[in-house]
């Protein structure tokens, strides 16, 4: 499989217990979670979760099924209100923000089970991502004032530009729900990018893709990071993808972090191997 060259990155500690790539160290991490935790009734879903993501880092969040990875995403985007701890986005606490405000502050995400606007066209899906970038009022739209034509033209151009990242311009007028599975996953990423985020959360972007599609996706994730100069945090079960492009990896098991480090550190960590494969039987 053709995988992009893994960048040789040294991870350095930042104040607190977190690590980020050395090149990002002179700036504050884009996101830092401190002692984060959430309980559902009596169940401790996530506990003592510490993590920092550098400004231009591609970070990975892995762990066995049910480890709490998506719950962490839902905490970062304020779908859930954390029970303990704090999340700092660009140094600002997002404690009192709603999902909508968190997006405007710079976190965009995709979903494990694709959530597109299935009845709308591909172009409209991307334009919805641009909703807060290009603005005009309801009556400007109804009365078709000059502002409408100007903004819609701008939106169309931006949408096409964004679609071209994944070479999807030809799908622009298709119904989003009618796209093939892989294209729907890509469209979700484009829509998230359209909101102009500084941190992109990808929830299993390679799920259901074949090896050649996954390889393509890996290249594209790196390309997105390099073009937009943003940080990306991804949840993924495909180890080729995770080990291939992630710089810092965080392993979660039963809601707790069991390891943090570079791909090679993670691959050789006995606790991680145990979490994935189980304990070797004695004797």
């Amino acid at each position, binding site marked *: 499989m053709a995988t992009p060259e893994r960048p040789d990155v040294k991870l350095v500690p930042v104040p607190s217990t977190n690590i980020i790539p050395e090149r990002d160290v002179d700036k504050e991490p884009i996101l830092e979670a401190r002692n984060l935790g959430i309980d559902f009734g009596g169940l401790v879903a996530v506990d003592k979760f510490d993590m920092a993501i550098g400004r231009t880092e591609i970070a990975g969040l892995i762990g066995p099924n049910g480890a709490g990875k998506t719950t962490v995403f839902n905490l970062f985007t304020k779908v859930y209100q954390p029970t303990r701890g704090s999340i700092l986005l660009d140094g600002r606490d997002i404690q009192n923000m709603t999902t909508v405000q968190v997006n405007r502050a710079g976190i965009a995400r995709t979903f494990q089970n694709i*959530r597109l*606007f299935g*009845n709308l066209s591909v172009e409209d899906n991307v334009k*919805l991502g641009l909703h807060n970038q290009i603005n005009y009022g*309801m009556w400007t*739209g109804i*009365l078709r004032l000059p502002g409408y034509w100007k903004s819609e033209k701008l939106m169309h151009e931006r949408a096409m530009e964004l679609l071209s990242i994944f070479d999807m311009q030809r799908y622009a*007028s298709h119904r989003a729900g009618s796209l093939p599975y892989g294209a729907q996953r890509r469209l979700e990423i484009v829509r998230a990018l359209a909101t102009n985020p500084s941190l992109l959360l990808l929830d299993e972007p390679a799920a259901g893709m074949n090896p050649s599609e996954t390889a393509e996706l890996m290249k594209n994730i790196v390309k997105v990071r390099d073009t937009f100069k943003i940080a990306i945090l991804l949840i993924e079960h495909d180890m080729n993808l995770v080990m291939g492009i992630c710089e810092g990896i965080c392993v979660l098991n039963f809601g707790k972090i069991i390891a943090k480090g570079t791909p090679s550190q993670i691959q050789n960590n006995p606790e991680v191997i145990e979490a994935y494969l189980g304990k070797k039987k004695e004797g």
Partner: protein
Amino acid sequence: MKKNNIFLIYGTVIAAYIIIQLLMSAGAVTSSLRGQLVPICAYIVMAVSLNLTVGVLGELSLGHAGFMSIGAFTGVVACMSLESALPPTLPRFVISLLVGAAFAGVAGFLIGIPVLRLNGDYLAIVTLAFGEIIKNIINCLYVGIDSRGLHLSFLTNSDALNLEEGGTVIINGPMGIAGITKLSTFTFGFALVLVALFIVLNLIRSRAGRAIMALRDNRIAAESIGINVTKYKLMAFVTSSALAGAAGTLFALNYSTITAAKFNFNTSILVLVFVVLGGLGNIWGSIIATTVLVILPELLREFNDYRMLVYAIVLILVMLATNNATFKNTLRELVNKIIPEKLIKRKEGTTDGNS
């Protein structure tokens, strides 16, 4: 919705208006049909506006007649109290429509604020209750006018208004409003239909409309890309209620008497039937379904006692037929035989964002 589709809607509506006007001047329109023209226009506006809530926003509303009722009574009160101050009919009619729309819109806003923040079918429950509450409030409401201005009284009788000599009672409790000067004409109705179509179709194909449809398709995803859920739900619902209010004024100004009982639960359901039968989110379908279903009972007059029975059967058959794949395929094959295939093939490649 494709551009040529929009022109098809406007074109057909304008063509229908011209044809009916020509037929009327030729004396070929029966008086019973002529009496139906304004109600058809009012119901088209009702259906188009309800489609905005049910089809485009994806929230069920069971009290659309309540907004119509508010629009009808406030609009007529405005019209009657302006009678001496503003004799020309056109500006008075327009002001009445705006008053009706404004009051209904405010009512929609007040209901929407608490209810549209919730997820689920709460709007259906609350609007159902709202329709009944409005009916009962207007049944107990007395409004009169004299030289000192408008007088309001609640739960009493018309004497409690303390009107001066020469004052008139406008809303007389359960008896409603009597002695309305009929201002609505087919042309006014047609103009209101065009305005409603213009507002709804342009709203759908703009930034706000996209956000509204995004909420319908996937609320969680819409939130994740920073779309303010309550704002756009309210925007759709208030626009829908205001248009229903204008339709109510148009409807009421077509009769000499109007009572609150006219705008009951059955009316709400009737409008919902127009919307569902025409297709959720399909504005064009709403217009056709409304026209057919308002005229149908008139055409079925010869069945006398069995009229509503036949009406129900026709309704069920149409619903079955339009949802039956075999029937649709047969129809398509039939159409294919008549129209060269090339013309149809070109249509299939396009996508329709709103249906």
